């Protein structure tokens, strides 16, 4: 791959949680680069360290050690150019779909018609036209996650962080969402950091995979993937890649 522009660099990131009873290290000296416009996947077993890392990158949690270099400059705290999609959805149940999607624009003080205009564009992009005035509770799991994606895109981020967005969906809906996400990503190019514990999903989506160890999270291996898209999950090279990664993954009981 030719030398791309680095959107972000993570340098020696560590995070330890302290409590009265003792301390627990979730992330131990993790460093990796994020290239501009790339679909980077962070793959790790179980539930340890991944969400904390994303919270640190998004600026809602601070690291015990290490820096985040964004566009060449060290960055501390919240970053308006970063949007996030959550596994637990975190949609506002009291807002309709369109009110949820336009949240970031409303916070920026944009006028109503303009906000609605942009929100409608992204609702159409994720395939939810006609559901603008529904409440999240009335939608299926897959559709609610589409609202989460539309909300993040509507904030016009340069870097989109996704924390196991398809974790709660059944296998078949998950395949559908993976295909749709790639279509959306190709139509509206953004740098994406996609976190998952599903190896098949990682190999299907990622330009590169960063494999983390079990707690405390360390970078075990970085796998560039050069299988052309759309990838066939049962093709020989896909399955071989998957087995090599799976053999290298820790088992977290």
């Amino acid at each position, binding site marked *: 791959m030719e030398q791309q522009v680095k959107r972000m660099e993570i340098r020696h990131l560590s995070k330890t949680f302290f409590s009265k009873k003792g301390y627990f290290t979730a992330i131990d000296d993790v460093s990796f680069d994020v290239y501009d416009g790339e679909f980077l996947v962070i793959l790790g077993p179980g539930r340890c360290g991944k969400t904390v890392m994303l*919270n640190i990158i998004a600026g809602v949690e601070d690291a015990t050690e290490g820096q985040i270099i964004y566009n060449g400059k060290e960055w501390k705290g*919240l970053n308006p150019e970063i949007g*996030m999609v*959550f596994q637990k959805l*975190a949609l506002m149940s009291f807002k309709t779909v369109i009110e949820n999607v336009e*949240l970031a624009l409303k*916070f920026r003080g944009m006028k109503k018609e303009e906000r609605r205009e942009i929100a409608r564009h992204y609702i159409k992009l994720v395939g939810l036209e006609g559901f603008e005035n529904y*409440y999240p*509770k009335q939608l299926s799991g897959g559709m609610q996650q589409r609202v989460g994606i539309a909300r993040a895109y509507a*904030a016009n981020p340069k870097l989109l962080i996704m924390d196991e967005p398809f974790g709660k969906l059944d296998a078949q809906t998950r395949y559908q969402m993976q295909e749709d996400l790639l279509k959306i990503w190709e139509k509206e190019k953004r740098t994406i950091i996609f976190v998952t514990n599903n190896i098949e999903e990682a190999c299907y989506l990622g330009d590169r995979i960063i494999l983390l160890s079990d707690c405390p999270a360390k970078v075990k291996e970085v796998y560039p993937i050069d299988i052309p898209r759309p990838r066939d999950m049962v093709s020989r090279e896909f399955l071989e890649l998957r087995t090599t990664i799976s053999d290298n993954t820790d088992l977290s009981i």
Partner: protein
Amino acid sequence: MDRMSSGQKTVRTVLYWGLPVLAVLLIIVGWITFSASHPDLMPAPVDVWDRFIRTFTRPIAKTTLIGHAWASLRRVLIALLIAWAFGIGFGILIGWNRKARAFFGSIFEVIRPIPPIAWIPIVIMWFGIGEFPKVLLVFIGTFVPLVINTSAGIEMVDKINLHVGRIFGGNDMQILKEIVIPTALPSIFAGIRTSVSSGWTTVLAAEMMGAQQGLGSLVTRGWQGSDLSLVLVAVITIAVIGALLAVILQQLEKVVCPWNSK
């Protein structure tokens, strides 16, 4: 369980509707027999009905039953409006801001365990038995549950929603207005419901301690004049209005929080 024979099904429906009717009949019959055998302890339903009519034809303290009911309701509503504004505002303040919670919260924690009714004597000593002390007492009775529920609602907002607010560029006030308060609304409504029932109880107690008008005064007047049917008329009116207030609040919540009911 849907393969039952039709016979079984009819038995179930008969029981389902028959039992409540049976219960109500039992109450009425019980009331009649008890009042027949102990007229001094319990007036018969007929006497209560006559007394109910008489409250309109011969008003007590120049006000009919509706007048008394409105006197009590007016006191509660005035106090509630003030309590809602202050109580919810104060609840949001101590729920949202840690320093305020430490400073004001501690004062509130000291006053909280004192039951509203325990305030009656001191308030009467200070302000007599006019309108203001009664409204003040109802305010005290409604303020506490509001603050408890509102601050609890604000504190229990899921941390992830706050993350959403900050990541999507909201400042503290925007997050409070757009995310935290709406999420806490159901709990605030629980506070409102409790405050109404507690306000209704407190106004009665205040009126029973001394008042010219109000359903509480009717209860005391009936009690001291050993006119039990008046006491019953007043108690039934109190119960009916109490139930109506609860129903109105339920509808209000459906309007204010449509997303819960949909």
